[in-house]
């Protein structure tokens, strides 16, 4: 490599990554915890719990990811601006 590594983003903050990480982890672990939902009752419109619970998680997981996306987009912009501000000041 000839050119030096010019950072594309400034240093990360812990909090946004931690919060997004927890949201993402919930969206992975909850739909996979089978003992929580492997039962027939309470049924909804004739659908056993096993089925409507898993379909409900389609929405919950998407919602969690939407929040995580908003957080990450903000943090990503902040990190990018940090680098660009530096360049402008040089």
């Amino acid at each position, binding site marked *: 490599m000839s050119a030096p*590594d010019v950072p594309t983003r400034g240093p990360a903050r812990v909090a946004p990554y931690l919060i997004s990480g927890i949201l993402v982890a919930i969206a992975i672990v909850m739909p996979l915890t089978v003992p929580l939902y492997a039962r027939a009752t309470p049924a909804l419109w004739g659908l056993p719990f096993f089925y409507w619970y898993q379909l409900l998680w389609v929405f919950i997981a998407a919602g969690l990811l939407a929040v995580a*996306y908003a957080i990450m987009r903000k943090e990503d912009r902040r990190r990018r601006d940090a680098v660009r501000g530096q360049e402008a000041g040089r």
Partner: protein
Amino acid sequence: MSAHLLAAATATGAHRPVNWTALIIVIVLFVLVAVIGFLASRWRTDASARGLHSLDEWGLGGRGFGTWVTWFLLGGDLYTAYTFVAVPAAMWASGAVSGFFAVPYTVVLYPIVFVLMSRLWSVSHRHGYVTPADFVGGRYGSRWLSLAIAVTGIVATMPYIALQLVGIRSVLTVLGLGSGSNAFMADLPLIIAFVVLAAYTYTGGLRAPALIAIVKDVLIYIAIIVAIAYLPAHFGGWAGIFDAADKKLSATNPATGAPFGAVIPGVTGFNAYWTLALGSAMALFMYPHSITGVLATKSRNTIRRNAVYLPLYSLMLGFLALLGYVAIKAGTNPVDTNGAINAQLVVPQLFLDTFPSWFSGVALAAIAIGALVPAAIMSIAASNLFTRNIYRDFFKKDATPKHEANVSKLVSLIVKVGALVFVLGLDQSSAINFQLLGGIWILQTFPAIVAGLYTRWFNKWALLVGWAAGILYGTITAYDVVNPATHAHFGGSIAAFPGTSTTVYIGVTAFLINAVIAVLGTLLLRAFRVKDTADATRPSDFGADEDDPKVAEIERSEPLLEP
């Protein structure tokens, strides 16, 4: 997706009459899609880019797809026709464990995509990587590891393309084609469909399936929304449907002495259920066709936004799976042309039995076109792998972008002919067996690709040995699974975890073996101070966005700076 749904033959003698109304609708929509496919090469291309003379243009659609196009493209790419046919078929034949796991699978898929894929996008954008093997080759400085990733990708993709043909064939069968006495005439519609597909993929590259995906998705959403709004009420409500499913599945299978399946899995099925879902989710975005869809996007955040919107397809898949139970209640009788029961036909047959011919035509066309989109993307992805990581790396290091594009276009034709020969020459169940194996194999590329996105700690040889061990274990174990009814090998994708009687997805066990060997091997090689430091990437690459300069540009602007 789950395999071995070909239930025991019950000869009822079946010459299917041709359903002309439905057939004409299918043909009209197919012609419409073909026209779109041929026009696609002119879509969003500058005059200078006509002819698509680079892999960025031909194989990645110009690397400029925004959120909406990507949503349709990936939706059409990941939720294949075979999925639409096989998941309800599995529900119909054996219930939740082999069918409904597709729902948690496609739910946990997106958190994984959200975390991993923007990093892969960034580093690939910076370095102009077209395939996952390009990234692995650059990251580890090893064309052998890169070759292993590329070959795994190609071999796993081929049967997947073949299964798309199985999806089209199931549609043609219920339409009444394919029961002719002459074998060539019976397969002719399938051959024509594939020749047309091959032609517009050749001229339009990734733009063709991207445009067609929009048509296909509109059709499939219409078909499923109508089916879900109408069918449950028509057959007496969900409660009655689940009662009928429970009654059919809890009956004793004479071949095994155990029930056919269960509406709600018992305790012994829990680990199979979640490992199938997790392992499949980890594997899906290691497939070259998924990564092609990711790398074709415009910016770092496009794929993340899509991780929020794409689950709408998972909801649709969930309802489609439930149509398998609706078919039980409806008494659908999926008889193949040879008179045997073929579970794969259950959803097309349900539509044809219940709806007017013209609407069945729309639904069946949606399934058939839904097979063309992933087949096109898969063949593009496989030929890109061949061109970049086998042809260029091992035979012609100085290949120009135009030469690469020409090779890739040609190989995409060969790949499709290969898949066609596969389906026509071998029986359908071997295509399913190989696809089952393909899922296990592709999961073995996860450690090298995903670890590489975060760290260069792993030794390239340790990763290669881990990969080989995972493939070996997965193949042998899958071979040893015997179908209790037919006594055939490759009878399923779950087996006991070594040393226990707990049954889990074979791919997950193989992945654990692979990862443990990669870690231990790296520690061992480090203890002996084996040098392994080659790395073309730099930390800044993994966070780069569309407006950051590409590596080629940086090197042009500062060529004299030495480290």
